[in-house]
């Protein structure tokens, strides 16, 4: 089952990006590539949406941006996690866990509808 970018909520994309950056600063292309590889091509994210997320994350202070040199010595814009970003990532993870747990509880329930 392929989850397309249409079904991914903006908030989730932000969370994925923040998670990706926990492994060190990356440029936008690197993030896109990593997400594709790690999810085994299941997650296809429109690049445009990715960059919009990145810039908005910078606006909110969760990531910081700097220009640097890529592996091929080309000028590229690198993003890294800020302390506020780390905190937000932790909070987002907790929110998602709660959400997932709630859904699982419903699906796993064996109790029928309580009698009126």
């Amino acid at each position: 089952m392929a989850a397309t970018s249409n079904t991914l909520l903006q908030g989730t994309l932000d969370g994925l990006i923040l998670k990706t950056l926990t492994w060190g600063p990356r440029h936008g292309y690197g993030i896109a590539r990593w997400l594709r590889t790690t999810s085994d091509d299941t997650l296809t994210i429109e690049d445009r949406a990715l960059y919009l997320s990145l810039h908005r994350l910078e606006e909110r202070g969760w990531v910081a941006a700097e220009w640097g040199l890529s592996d091929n010595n080309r000028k590229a814009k690198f993003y890294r996690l800020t302390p506020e970003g780390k905190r937000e990532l932790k909070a987002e993870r907790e929110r998602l866990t709660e959400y997932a747990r709630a859904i699982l509880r419903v699906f796993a329930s064996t109790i029928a509808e309580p009698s009126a």
Partner: protein
Amino acid sequence: MSLFRLPRSLRRIHRDVDDEIRFHIDSRIGALVAGGMSPDDARRTAEREYGDVAASRAELTEVDHRILARERWLEWMDSSWQHITYAMRGLRARPAFAIAVVITLALGIGANAAIFSVVDRLLFRLPPLLREPALVNRLYAAFPSPEHDGQNFFVENIPWLRYQDIVNATRSFTRTAGYSDQQLALRTGDDVREVHVGAVSASFFDFFDAPPALGRYFNAAEDMPPSGALVVVLSYGTWQTRYAGRSDALGATLQIGPATYTVVGVAPEQFVGVWTDEPPVAFIPVAAFLGAADDRRRGKTWFTSYDLDWATMLVERKRGVSIAAANADLTAALRRSWKEQGGPPDLQPHGLAESILTERGPNQRSVSRVAALVGGMAFIVLMITCANVASLLLARALRRRREIAVRLALGVSRARLLAQLLTESVLLAVLGGIAGLVVAHWGSTVLGRMLLPAGADTRVLTDTRTLGFVGVPVLMTGILTGLAPAWLAVHVDVVRHLKNSGHGDTLRTSRARMALLVVQGALSVILLVGAGLFVRSLNNVKALPLGYDADRVLTVALNMRDVNLDSGAAVALRERLLATAMRVPGVEHAALHLTLPFVNTALGNIQADSLVRRGLPNFRINAVTPDYFATMGTRILRGRGISTADASGAPAAVVVSKRMANLLWPGRDALGQCVREGGEKTCRLVVGIAEDIKGNILDDDTGLHYYYAAAQFKPQRNGVVLRMRGDAASGVEVVRRTIQREMPGAASVSVTPFANAIEQERESWRLGATMFSIFGALALVLAAIGLYSTLAYSVTQRSHEMGVRIALGAQATDVIWLVVRQGLVFGGAGVLLGGVAASIAANRFASLLFSESPRDPVVYASVGGVLLTIAAVASAIPARRAARVDPNVSLRSE
């Protein structure tokens, strides 16, 4: 991978976004080509995968703009905060300077704000919510008056018939209305209070864009003669306080005066009618007020007679109708009405459409003119203040030149330095402004009590117009007075100031300061001359012989409220009150009177055989009991005063004033002559001649007064006047309580010292004397501070020169004289300039003075002397310091 940051700017944003997108797409193309795709396919795929590049560029740029803006904002906040803390530290290091500036600003700005808030309310603030404030006028009828030397006297209240005549005959007005304000007794249960009520015509509310908060206003049918309908519209405040804003206030009843009214509506919150200083508690139809009046005859005839006043007329001109055109229209209508009434044809009235504000109309009190003058004066003081502050800031900036040179040499940009210095002066200005508000709050309360009606709102802290008026000078002071010195200091020659210890350069800058000082001195002279002229006027007024001795006299006024007595009972009541008054301990004399100078005078209609009537009569009538002349202290010059022999039934007697005797019977003996009152047949014989008195206007010497015996005159009205053995004010309560016991029903008495009425007449000169003295002293202090600081600075700059002089043999006195002479030159220049300006200004305002020439040499000479003395004192202190310079130290510090 190296990381480096480049500074952001607007142009870079577009470039960076392009670079980032291009990097991504190129990298993807590279990866696809490495995986075996053709370059063209790779490009197409990569671009497809990316999405709409142009749209992406736009949205990314937008976000980056926001990021940049935020960054810049934070930077600005940070550097401002740095500037402020630095400035505060600098001020704390030099507290004397900071305090001097803040106090100077506080006094200047505060005084200005206080005066503005009062003068604005008197002269400028129009009633709120008017639909067309520029087109609304109040009508005055101007009649030529021989007793005022052919000048006009202005009538505000017109009869209802006249109003109808004008409305029918004029074409210039969109709408007209009438209004009058009344003090009426508002009764709730047992509680009775006198409140301000607006008696207005139904069309009054159409002048305002003010839909009622509840219910409706009264309509034309409820304002028709003979007595309208007993309906009332509450003010918003009254609705909130008495009925807690409940909607069942509609239909409630209120007893106002003698009648009971039903509430039909509530006015909106801002609405005060035309009474900005004292908003009425409620509004009733004029017809209802007049119809329900105590005087039964008036209640029936107010709409059929030209003799009875109705209200003041309010008009709204049609668009395009000028005031002159409206006046012409009004005059024509007035004259037709006057003819219709059968008024004397030699008294042709003019119509005048004037401002709603009483103090801008022809009946303006002289107090208001003084108040306007005071306003101009406060502005002058504000200018002095700014000059002083500029001067102090300039001195400080010049002292810091070395420090500034060092900072510039270390690489601080001039812009940043300028910002720093500006922050300092703005900070001072803001502190001064805050302190100024405190001064303004106190000052406006004091001034308001003097100039505005009691109960007027004088709050400054919530008054947006005044706050704006204060805010502007605060900011302007901070920026302008800080700008010039800061600019000067920053454009300093770095090299020169690093090299030497800062001598020289005194000439160029001190010329500016010299000019400032002379101007300050001149302005102080102007204000002090004003003070001197007003003080002398006030003394002249106080020394004026009145023809009676007001000091220990109390007046008792009767307030009958809704108690109606027939004439017999009224006479008996007055006699009883007089007898009671005589018995109060401490009372030396007591008498009844019909009229009283300054409190209420009336024109009589006297006829004598030798009198040729010209114009309106100017004879002021009184009817008194025997002890009157002793009570008032008016001397009888010839013959006798009214005595107990002049009872009803005895031959009618009259006492005339000296001027009246000379006018009616020149060259002959007035005693025994015959006069008649009105259309009477019986003669009243002159039995005595009394000294002339001031009846109505202090500088009027044309009053003609005469006195009948109270027992021989009808009607018997008005109250008691008594003379105390001791101080009048202390007897007020005792007298009031004793006499109040004799009053029937809800009627009451009020007792006031007669001197209060006289004091009120002197108010304008007293105001001028007080305000000019205060501001003159203030200006003088500021000028002295300015002079002191200038000379102190100059002495410090010239310490080298002083050292040389002393080393060459100059005595201490020589050095002192050197400095003091400089101070005296400044002072002298200020006196000269100020004296000339003052005499020009005083000429224009000569009419506000009393028996005082605007060029009074005593005043000018004393002011000049005071200024020169202060200049000498202010320069003596730095002079002493100059004389103590140790030549060893100063010569070596080169």
